[in-house]
């Protein structure tokens, strides 16, 4: 067939192995993908296959039993002339899809007429591999890999596309069925990896208030499954209320609804795990260097916003017992709040961080020169969802308080007599006696 005749021998030989490796990775990703991110996993798979086959587009169009059509598209960079409104024509295949086996089109002439008709501009479609997705014997979708130029697709390329089609069909089947093929252990591994990822994300916090970000992302991560749950519940009602209830769709809606409940639960579980006392690493920490580290992370932010930060820390402070990442979060959050306070008005932009020790406690205070806090707000400022910031979530200080209290400490806020406010936290100091006793009571 002369396929790959212009490639070097080495390339030709390594290609099947490369594709096999790629498909193995895609397969394991598809198996592990949780319900809500199957779509992203499919997108990733399309991108990889498209790149590997040097195609211009890779796409999947599927139809569920009720006729709703789902599209996933990868297009090579620069391929999509969106402003002109391009169309790949492949969605037209679902109209009267008669594709029961793979169709390899080396030239435009070999493309099915409806595809060619709907492709716009037609110049974008010169050749394609079209593979039906078989699901329980019923064709319910098509995987297409297309190129702008005519091309004799290598048998390995066709085979890889067919294999991906099988995997996608199986993945979609798994989504639709009650049972999950994923072993419990794999699920747990996935959950653990997710927790680690979240922790790492927080550990590598730079410049921004990660707590605020965490709260916003938490709200978002919960809102998505809630939206899916609510829409499915409403859909189930409507299908039930029909003169002839559509029980199949009610069942499917309930299945998805359960999946999304689990997803919401997972989000909360991850959060709980992050802040659970025994899950956190408690080590002896020097507070001074911890503050300095946070200040380094926030340095650019302070410079950009014209805030002057002064650190006033005694060098001989006792260490505290705690989780470095969490305590850094607290200090960072207080500092970012202070930055916000001093940049809001026309006053001096000065923030002081003071670390001292008193009565067996290490105390950290963050002082700003902002407008201070309204007396009525002082008591509520640490409550969840209480905020005076226009786009605030009201979670930052609430999380700060739960972290500090989990460390056996206290946190409070008051106004300074001159101007601005003070946020103070105290943590039990490790005394030299405790240290020599090995830290165990």
């Amino acid at each position: 067939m002369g396929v790959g005749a212009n490639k070097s021998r080495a390339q030709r030989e390594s290609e099947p192995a490369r594709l096999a490796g790629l498909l193995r990775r895609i397969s394991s990703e598809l198996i592990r993908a949780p319900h809500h991110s199957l779509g992203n996993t499919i997108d990733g798979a399309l991108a990889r296959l498209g790149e590997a086959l040097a195609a211009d587009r890779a796409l999947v169009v599927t139809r569920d039993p009720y006729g709703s059509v789902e599209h996933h598209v990868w297009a090579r960079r620069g391929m999509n002339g969106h402003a002109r409104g391009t169309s790949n024509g492949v969605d037209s295949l679902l109209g009267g899809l008669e594709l029961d086996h793979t169709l390899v089109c080396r030239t435009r002439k070999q493309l099915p007429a409806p595809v060619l008709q709907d492709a716009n501009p037609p110049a974008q479609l010169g050749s394609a591999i079209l593979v039906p997705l078989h699901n329980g014997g019923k064709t319910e979708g098509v995987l297409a890999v297309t190129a702008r130029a005519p091309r004799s697709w290598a048998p390995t390329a066709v085979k890889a596309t067919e294999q991906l089609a099988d995997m996608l069909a199986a993945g979609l089947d798994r989504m639709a069925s009650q049972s999950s093929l994923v072993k419990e252990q794999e699920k747990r591994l996935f959950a653990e990896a997710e927790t680690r990822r979240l922790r790492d994300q927080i550990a590598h916090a730079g410049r921004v208030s990660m707590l605020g970000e965490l709260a916003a992302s938490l709200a978002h991560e919960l809102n998505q499954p809630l939206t899916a749950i609510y829409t499915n519940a409403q859909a189930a009602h409507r299908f039930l209320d029909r003169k002839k209830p559509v029980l199949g769709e009610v069942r499917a809606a309930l299945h998805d609804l359960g999946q999304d409940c689990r997803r919401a639960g997972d989000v909360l579980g991850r959060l709980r795990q992050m802040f659970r006392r025994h899950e956190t690493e408690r080590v002896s920490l020097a507070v001074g260097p911890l503050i300095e580290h946070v200040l380094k992370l926030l340095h650019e932010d302070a410079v950009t916003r014209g805030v002057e930060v002064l650190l006033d820390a005694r060098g001989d402070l006792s260490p505290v017992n705690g989780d470095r990442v969490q305590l850094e979060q607290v200090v960072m959050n207080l500092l970012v709040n202070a930055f916000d306070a001093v940049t809001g008005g026309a006053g001096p932009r000065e923030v002081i961080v003071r670390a001292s020790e008193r009565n067996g406690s290490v105390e950290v205070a963050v002082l700003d020169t902002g407008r201070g806090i309204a007396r009525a707000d002082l008591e509520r400022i640490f409550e969840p969802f209480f905020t005076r910031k226009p786009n605030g979530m009201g979670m930052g200080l609430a999380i700060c308080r739960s972290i500090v209290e989990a460390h056996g400490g206290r946190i409070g806020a008051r106004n300074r007599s001159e101007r601005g406010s003070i946020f103070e936290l105290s943590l039990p100091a490790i005394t030299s006696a405790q240290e020599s006793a090995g830290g165990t009571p």
Partner: protein
Amino acid sequence: MPARARRVFVIDDDHSVRRGLARLLAAAGYRVETFESGPAFLERSPPRGEHCLVVDVRMPGMSGPELRDVLRAAGRDSPLVFITAHGTDEIEEDLGMETVLLKPIEADLLVHAIDAAITGLAPRSGKRQRVARH
């Protein structure tokens, strides 16, 4: 089943949300197609006949308002309803005159917003119609 052959195109990057909306809108009698991104929708041949786009505001890559702008620049004036899981304050300027529904979405409000957008009943001048969560 109401005698509607109206088509709705859902563009949202969240798989579960797409599935839920597709099912709900199918239950409400629409023909539904879903897309995981703006560019994926733009790959489809421009829809003809009565239809409406339901577009998530914040998506990676191309945002909802950006998709709207691309469509308008190409002379495509499909009726459009935005949905978002976030507040609308930060994106107020980008939203233009379209209806914005906050997630989680009330089915009746969504159906009403879609039909109003299709028939052009949504106020296209003056203050933008905003359907808030209650």
